């Protein structure tokens, strides 16, 4: 079974009938005052609904303040307003629930083989995964499901992680290094692993993910709280405005000597229309949907706060390899030393790379074959001893036994400084021409590999970094968003400069060690910047913990994943840019709907004020610029518009306002025009249309 998680259509909202039904039921359950009170705006609407229902019952008994049909209709639409808001929240949650259900299947009760000694071959007892504690060591063999998150202490195995990533190709997990983390709920396909549990039962990655998706642990983010306070303030003001209208109206009636005071029903209707119900009703759905969009991009955020912070990121630290350039460098040219034939260099380079299974090594073999017709000889054809690359010698190569035509050949290839030391140690000479070539190659952003046979320098292999297609355009976009990109690379400054220029990053950090990354992040933060970075290795963990937005690759180590506040299940470092856009979308959706909501009030005043005081001051009908049919139809139209606009905007709330990489001023102009000016105009049209429909249907 492949869970839905990564295979939903990212363009559509992806709902089905079942989810709608579930949301409908949930929106009724959410009417409970205890859950409503969390949302002050909608709580006021619910209180108004209850009040008007009571007035309706009173009117039915014959002593109402207005005809029962009118009070009843207003009351009904107020209930709809509450239900629509609940429905939006339930719908946003519903999708998460469906995904969580899929994940839960991966988290059935699992048996674990708890080892008595932390080594393979030790005796074990079979326990339920719930019995495991952090630090326990257990064995997982082919076909077993890993009981809980942990760190591989022994063994190598292929693991099917599709339950989490949706990716069916198995991944290798082994002790030590950057691929030692395993996740509970994934399945070992071959071989075995000895794992030390790094989480308590119920606290594993899968559990956290389920919690997050279900929204069970959803807490309001700081920005959401700030907005809620502002909305609550508006609600209180409008409450006072409407409550004091009753004495004002009573006074007006008593001094004008005619007319009837404004009814409580009309005041409640006015109140509900004025308070920001559109944003109040959709606010929670916007937040949930933001988290959900992350999940559909296969990113798990450990808090909503992290998503908001993503929208504010000023600096992106990007690893060169894999993010800016394709992971592998390609050999593009052989430059022989003076007096050496190109063919000889190509031949030696190929021989030295035959056993080199890295993409760079393979590309050397391919280049020699394509450019000089040297066929790729098989390793066993020649009596050779291959020297693998080691961090100490910083070179690799081959020793070929003497045969009829040649004496013993000792071929080495490696970085220029390492080879220089090697040749001088042997008493050979490092030609200045080669020195020059090495520098030239570095300057254009490529990597030079020097090839040496015995004591003689044969030449240089030109390994080129391939900058990913389209990456430059993305950096231009980021710059427009106000985000600075910094490339992190272990290359020397010369190479780094060239690649930085080619990719179009704003800055780079060359010859970077993990502690340099940490230092750089701290420096930016001291200057008030928000820093985002991606990482996967254990040595990235301190920097990840320091960064404001830290995205760990799912293939990364446990410590990296724990230090980060987001995990990218696709392990795609360029995802950071999408994360930033989602963060911005979240804030923008809140902002636009708030503006729209408040702007709507203008039209509602024009609809309700003349209607409310029609009997006392008929001249106020001059304000009825929409020419609404009757006072009742005016009030009903406003209330109905107010309820329907919530439904109409649910798709926008769930999808989010589209982000455009333009300047802040341009973005503000655009959004003020659409949601501000549009928010003033739209209700005039909407209320008029509803009024015309009410008249046409003879409901008024």
């Amino acid at each position, binding site marked *: 079974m492949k869970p839905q998680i990564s295979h939903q259509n990212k363009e559509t909202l992806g709902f089905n009938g079942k989810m709608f039904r579930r949301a409908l039921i949930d929106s009724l359950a959410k009417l409970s005052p205890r859950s409503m009170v969390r949302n002050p705006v909608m709580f006021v609407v619910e209180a108004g609904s209850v009040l008007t229902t009571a007035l309706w019952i009173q009117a039915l008994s014959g002593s109402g303040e207005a005809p029962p049909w009118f009070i009843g209709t207003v009351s009904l639409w107020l209930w709809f307003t509450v239900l629509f808001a609940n429905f939006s929240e339930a719908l946003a949650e519903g999708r998460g629930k469906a995904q969580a259900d899929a994940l839960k299947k991966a988290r059935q009760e699992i048996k674990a083989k708890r080892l008595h000694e932390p080594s393979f071959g030790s005796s074990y007892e079979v326990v339920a995964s719930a019995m495991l504690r952090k630090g326990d060591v257990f064995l997982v063999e082919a076909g077993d499901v890993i009981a809980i998150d942990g760190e591989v202490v022994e063994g190598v195995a292929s693991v099917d992680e599709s339950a989490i990533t949706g990716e069916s190709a198995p991944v290798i997990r082994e002790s030590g290094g950057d691929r030692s983390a395993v996740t509970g709920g994934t399945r070992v396909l071959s071989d075995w692993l000895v794992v030390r549990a790094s989480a308590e039962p119920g606290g594993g990655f899968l559990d956290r993910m389920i919690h997050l998706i279900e929204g069970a642990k959803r807490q309001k983010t700081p920005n959401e709280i700030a907005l809620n*306070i*502002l909305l609550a303030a508006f609600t209180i003001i409008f409450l006072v*405005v409407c409550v004091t209208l009753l*004495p004002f109206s009573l006074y007006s009636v008593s001094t004008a000597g005619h007319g009837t005071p404004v009814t409580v029903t009309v005041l409640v209707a006015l109140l509900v229309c004025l308070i920001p119900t559109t944003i109040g009703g959709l606010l929670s759905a916007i937040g949930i949907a933001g988290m959900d969009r992350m999940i559909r991009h296969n990113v798990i955020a450990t808090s909503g706060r992290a998503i908001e912070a993503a*929208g504010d990121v000023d600096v992106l630290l990007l690893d060169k390899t894999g993010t800016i350039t394709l992971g592998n460098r390609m050999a593009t040219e052989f430059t022989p030393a003076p007096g050496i034939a190109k063919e000889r260099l190509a031949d030696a380079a190929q021989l030295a790379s035959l056993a080199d299974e890295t993409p760079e090594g393979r590309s050397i073999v391919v280049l020699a074959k394509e450019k000089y017709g040297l066929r790729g000889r098989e390793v066993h054809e020649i009596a050779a001893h291959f020297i693998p690359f080691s961090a100490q010698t910083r070179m690799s190569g081959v020793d070929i036994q003497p045969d009829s035509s040649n004496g013993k050949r000792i071929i080495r290839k490696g970085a220029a400084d390492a080879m220089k030391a090697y040749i001088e140690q042997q008493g050979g000479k490092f030609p200045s021409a080669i020195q020059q070539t090495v520098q030239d190659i570095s300057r254009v952003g490529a990597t030079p590999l020097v090839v040496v046979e015995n004591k003689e320098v044969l030449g240089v292999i030109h390994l080129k970094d391939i900058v990913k297609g389209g990456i430059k355009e993305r950096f231009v976009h980021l710059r427009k968003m106000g985000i600075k990109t910094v490339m992190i690379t272990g290359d020397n400054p010369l190479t780094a400069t060239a690649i930085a220029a080619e990719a179009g990053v704003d800055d780079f950090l060359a010859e970077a060690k993990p502690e340099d990354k940490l230092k750089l992040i701290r420096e930016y933060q001291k200057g*008030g910047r928000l820093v985002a970075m991606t990482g996967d290795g254990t040595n990235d963990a301190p920097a990840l913990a320091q960064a404001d937005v830290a995205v760990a690759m799912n293939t990364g180590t446990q410590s990296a994943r724990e230090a980060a506040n987001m995990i990218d299940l696709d392990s795609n470092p360029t995802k950071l840019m999408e994360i930033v856009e989602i963060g911005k979308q979240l804030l923008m959706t809140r902002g636009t709907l708030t503006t729209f909501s408040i702007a709507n009030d203008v039209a509602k005043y024009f609809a309700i004020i003349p209607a409310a005081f029609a009997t006392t001051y008929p001249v106020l009908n001059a304000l009825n610029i929409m020419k609404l049919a009757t006072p009742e139809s005016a009030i009903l139209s406003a209330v109905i518009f107010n309820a329907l606009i919530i439904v109409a905007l649910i798709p926008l709330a769930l999808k989010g306002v589209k982000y455009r990489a333009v300047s802040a*001023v341009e973005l*503000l102009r655009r959004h003020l025009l659409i949601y501000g000016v549009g928010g003033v105009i739209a209700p005039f049209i909407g209320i008029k249309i509803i009024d015309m429909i009410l008249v046409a249907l003879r409901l008024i």
Partner: protein
Amino acid sequence: MTANGIFQIVFYFAVLILLVKPLGTFMAHVFQREKTLLDPVLGPVEHFIYRLARINPNEEYNWKENALAMLLFNFAGLLVVYVLQRFQQFLPLNPQRMSAVSSDSAFNTAVSFASNTNWQGYGGETTMSYFTQMVGLTVQNFVSAATGLALLALIIRGFARHSMKTLGNFWVDLTRSALYILLPLSFLLALTLVSQGVVQTFSPSFSVPLLQSTIDINGAKVTEQQIAVGPAASQIAIKQLGTNGGGFFNVNSSHPFENPTPLSDFLEVLSILLIAAALCYTYGYMVKDTRQGWAILAVMMIIFFGLLSISLWSEQHGNPAFTSLGIDQTSSSLQPGGNMEGKEVRFGIPNSVLWETATTAASNGSVNSMHDSYTPLGGLVALVMMHLGEVIFGGVGSGLYGMLVFVVVAVFVAGLLVGRTPEYLGHKIETYEMKMASLLILIMPITVLVFTAIAVMTDAGRSTIFNPGVHGFSEVLYLFTSQSNNNGSAFAGIGANTPFYNVTGGIAMIIGRYWLAVPTLALAGSLAQKKFVPPGEGTLPTHTPLFIFWLIAVVVIVGALNFLPALALGPIVEHLMMH
């Protein structure tokens, strides 16, 4: 409107704008304790005051300590004014032998002058002794205005500073504001006014024989008239400059001894907006980006000009009830035309309306015409100006810090609109700031509406409304709007010197001044502590025309939306009934 009228308005704006930069720069120097031209004269006085009051001018306080200092100082001032009024019959300089002021009126007046409202429920020349006017009221005219300036200085520092706990020293800002800004300007203005004929004397009022005798309400013959005089010029200067507004005489600046000539009128109406306008530049200067100050000034100017135009149009248009009686209301070389009821013929419509708009914009409250007699739309303009929260220029200091709260709200929503946690001048606007800002935009409408509702529902409130009906409602609304916003101008038409209005009004003024000042200080204190966020490409600039437009929209919508229903039942319906 006549060309002459238009020229006077344009000339007024031109002079005002020209003075903004020099005065604004000077005030910034004063607040930042930098060298000024007045140092040689006032420096020794300043240091003498510090020594006397045992103030260490180099010590800085956080917002709470400053708020406490401000409250204590103002409470002490309030108490002094109260006691002076209650015991004025025992005190010197009382040639008219005025008796003690009633306790509720004394409370209202004490609050009124301490809070820079200067609402006057009493008639100055018939209630207060010279001693009370000078030692009580004029002193408060200075210190209440200086309190506003000092508060603003502290709050601006909050916006300018980063990673700091302190905002400055209230005592130092208070002393320097009074000494370097208010005193010299008042001195200049008072002398100029005296040159124009404004009275300044300690002699009691004198009587003159009437040219034609008349009879009083009891049928007794009246042959002479009492002409009130007194030390008026010194009080008028500061009442205009310090956005106080409490006149020496009951009819305020329509009295020929307060405002005798066209030049005195021009200087007085200029003084209403002068400091408040220049403070915008001071703000820009102190936050090291004068564009921010100009942007705020632009917002104030545009709203001011818009509302001024409505009032001018409405007043010049006249009263249709008169038209139907065949009364000519068109302007000609012989008459100003339009609605001249309650306006001085010597000021005409442009100067009356300009004063009306300026005095309600700036929370000044002095008048040179009677607002109650304006057309409904003209009166509406005065009400709306105050309903915007006295942030269009507003009181000295308090207007700008009120506007800064709106800026914070505007920045917050605009930040969301562009997808970035909002920031202003390198400060992130977060939950705490929004809490304070929300509190600030909430209090004023609630105070106005609730008190108005109480007044129209109780006999105590209704019994002294002289014009029941739509206009009476406007009057009550105006009364509480004026006091809650510390404006002090009156629509009149209400017997406001009753225990009910004195006490409710006094409470409204206390809330309007101090309940707003303290959260604003808290907001500034919180901003000062924040780390600097350097502006980047994604930061929304807050000095562009677009932001100016947005801030106008926020101020107008937040202000107008709250009061639209109340206005509909007052001036709007009155206007519709008239036409």
